[in-house]
């Protein structure tokens, strides 16, 4: 596998990892923008815009866009998070030129008024669709509570009100300010030739506008603290959904590998502390913990759902477990197991071109560097008792904000 890198005159960065034995190639445009970059008047515009990107350009209407992906058997999609928007596709190697033709084209959308209005109703439906899923609604509430006024608490979907009020002009302004070549990088991983790829991209994207793009408020967050109850009638929400968010290392922190080992040892679906404390005795059907590393700030998320009758017991167990880990750290055996799990998953996932594309795009966004699989494995392997202690001291688990969503009026 070889890494290639090129920057066009307008600042668009092109990254490639070539793997001649791959059966496919994955390509994606990573735009460093998301709900944290929105003002409250345009809440949800990043995600709505992501939908509008597929609605056509000067050369294509929306049906042609979908058809041109389909014609080449592309496995394509897009997602929007609090701070990134990613447009990606996997195809067989022979379809690369056709993929560039459509994927690069749609990044300069027309945002036609008629399409904007039709898509608005799809977005409104998507908002409802998520609202009726308590697991997701609990997550949204918990984030808002934890982050307070910090932009990382902004909802990706927006609200029914903000989307209803949003105009095409507002979206166009947001697009013009954020979708600049200097704020986008393009990644390809798999079976392809880099120099001919650069030529294709220069033709397709060389004229994209460029400029300075800013992100406000990249500070760390301490969280609101406390217990926040969101009570719902039992006929609407049958189980209790609990989330605890604590501050953790940011995406560019050297402590992130220790944080990931810590979260795996505490909250992996199998054989973790949470598993033995909650799942094994049958108290909570689903529970887990993970580290979410963002730009300038990070957090640990612990989530569980259970029968409302069990919630007090579960919450007590989890808070005690956090206290014990905070005081005593992990055992060497736990650290080794977590490292083995993470490394095994990393190696297996990297066999798919899609996963390599995603990882390279992410590393570039947060670190401004390319890391291959071996770099990653070495960093995981280096985690030890000392680095676990360091991350616990720098970001104490006991610093959590709790949100409970469901029929219960109290959890202690």
């Amino acid at each position: 596998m070889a890494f290639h890198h090129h920057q066009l005159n307008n600042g668009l960065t092109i990254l490639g990892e070539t793997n001649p034995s791959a059966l496919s190639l994955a390509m994606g445009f990573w735009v460093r923008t998301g709900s944290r970059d929105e003002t409250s008047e345009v809440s949800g515009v990043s995600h709505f815009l992501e939908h509008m990107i597929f609605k056509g350009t000067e050369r294509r209407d929306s049906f042609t866009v979908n058809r041109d992906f389909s014609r080449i058997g592309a496995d394509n999609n897009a997602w929007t998070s609090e701070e990134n928007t990613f447009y990606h596709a996997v195809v067989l190697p022979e379809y690369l030129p056709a993929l560039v033709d459509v994927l690069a084209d749609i990044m300069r959308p027309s945002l036609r008024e008629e399409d904007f209005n039709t898509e608005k109703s799809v977005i409104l439906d998507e908002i409802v669709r998520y609202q009726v899923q308590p697991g997701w609604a609990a997550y949204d509430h918990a984030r808002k509570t934890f982050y307070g006024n910090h932009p990382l608490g902004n909802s990706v979907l927006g609200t029914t009100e903000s989307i209803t009020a949003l105009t095409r002009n507002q979206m166009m302004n947001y697009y013009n300010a954020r979708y600049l070549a200097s704020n986008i990088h393009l990644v390809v991983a798999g079976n392809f030739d880099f120099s001919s790829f650069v030529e294709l991209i220069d033709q397709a994207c060389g004229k994209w506008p460029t400029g300075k793009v800013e992100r406000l408020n990249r500070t760390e967050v301490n969280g609101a603290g406390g217990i926040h109850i969101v009570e719902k009638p039992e006929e609407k929400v049958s189980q209790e959904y609990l989330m605890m968010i604590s501050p953790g290392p940011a995406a560019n922190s050297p402590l992130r590998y220790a944080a990931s080992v810590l979260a795996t040892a505490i909250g992996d679906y199998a054989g973790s502390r949470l598993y033995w404390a909650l799942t094994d005795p049958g108290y909570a059907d689903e529970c887990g913990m993970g580290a979410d590393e963002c730009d300038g700030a990070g957090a640990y998320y612990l989530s569980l759902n259970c029968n409302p009758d069990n919630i007090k017991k579960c919450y007590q167990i989890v808070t005690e477990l956090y206290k014990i880990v905070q005081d005593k750290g992990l055992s060497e055996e736990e650290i080794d197991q977590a490292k083995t799990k993470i490394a095994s998953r990393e190696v297996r996932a990297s066999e798919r071109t899609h996963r390599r594309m995603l990882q390279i795009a992410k590393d570039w966004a947060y670190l401004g560097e390319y890391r291959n699989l071996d770099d990653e494995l070495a960093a995981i392997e280096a985690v030890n008792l000392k680095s676990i202690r360091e991350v616990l001291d720098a970001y104490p688990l006991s610093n959590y904000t709790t949100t409970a969503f469901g029929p219960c009026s109290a959890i202690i």
Partner: protein
Amino acid sequence: MKQELYQHTFSNGLTLLAERMPHVRSASLGFLIPAGCVYDPNHQLGLSSVLMEILFRGAGNYSSRALSNALNSLGIDHSEGSGLFNSSLSASMLSKNLEKALDLYANIILAPHLPESEMDAVKNLLIQDIEALEDEPQQKVMIELTRHYYPNPINRYKRGTIEGVQNTDVASLRKQHKNYFQPDGTILAIAGDFEWSRLRDHVQRLFGDWKANPVESIQVDSNNYQSVHLSKEIEQTQIALAFPSVPVSDPDFYKARGAVGVWSLDMSSRLFTNIREKYGLCYSVYASYESLRDRGTIVVYAGATPEKAQETLNRTLQELRILKDGIEDEEVDRVKVGLKSALIMRQESTAARAGAIASDWYFLKRVRPLQEIQTHIDQLSTKSIIDYAERYPPFPLSLVTLGPKELQLNH
């Protein structure tokens, strides 16, 4: 597409299938054991799920914790569950740990402890899982569709019922394990990098003495085709419907896949384009194909706000009905490219390959080479799909809706 496929059926009836993928470092394994929920006694619906849940809580020389440590120390990710006819266990790991993983699975499958002390915990987990369905309207409507479309026992929810789970006990678990965890008809599928003769001998050593106890096949009636509206005050009406197709073994199988492709392969397919893109009626709408050994089914789902639900249903039905009236060549070309690309891309995943070869053996008693599938895809045409659509219209049909208002099925 060069492939290295291997197959061996041991004298006790266990079939080992393997696909060697020399370019990968990972390996995946999957067991299909004919011990699914159709064999649950009527008063203990969920017994097979309880069994799958308790299986990892101690086996052979391993306590529950020791087994968990052993799996984790090898970086083995696993999942298991009871299905309709089969219980399945699957795992992914690095190829170098494949034999050690098989050693652990021999303990789990042949010598689980099934301890009384774990029963309450396991039952509580399953019951909470069943209760949580009330919070998952889409999953709920699909389970209800199965319940109303198919006859007993193939209309069961694999996790059982709260009452059925409560009724299970260790004695019934032991009986279930003794009767149904047996090699005759069991499939072990492996994909990854391995040496075939060594792998076969290793499996022989571990499972060669496993005693066969052939299970009598279950006679299943024809489908029920019932419809029902389930009233619930939710913000999004859930619409699910099902109608007959052909099973995987049928000569028309690829045409059925082609038809589903025209409806729902990707964002340019008819359902997405005409229901979501043209009219903005809903966020999610799709059709999919499912098969048992003796019958195939097309399942369609849409979720729409209550005000738009009736129009969503009407337009969806309309799309299903007019397939026989005409298909563009271009639509079929796209389906062919899409199916071919997906087929090749799945070759990058050992888990996907292990799953595919196991499924082929279960339905066909052989593994289809990729080239054969490719040839069938190439042969699809507008004519062949229209011919299929004429013979398999969306009738008789089950419609299950979940939401505040009942919908009308307009014929």
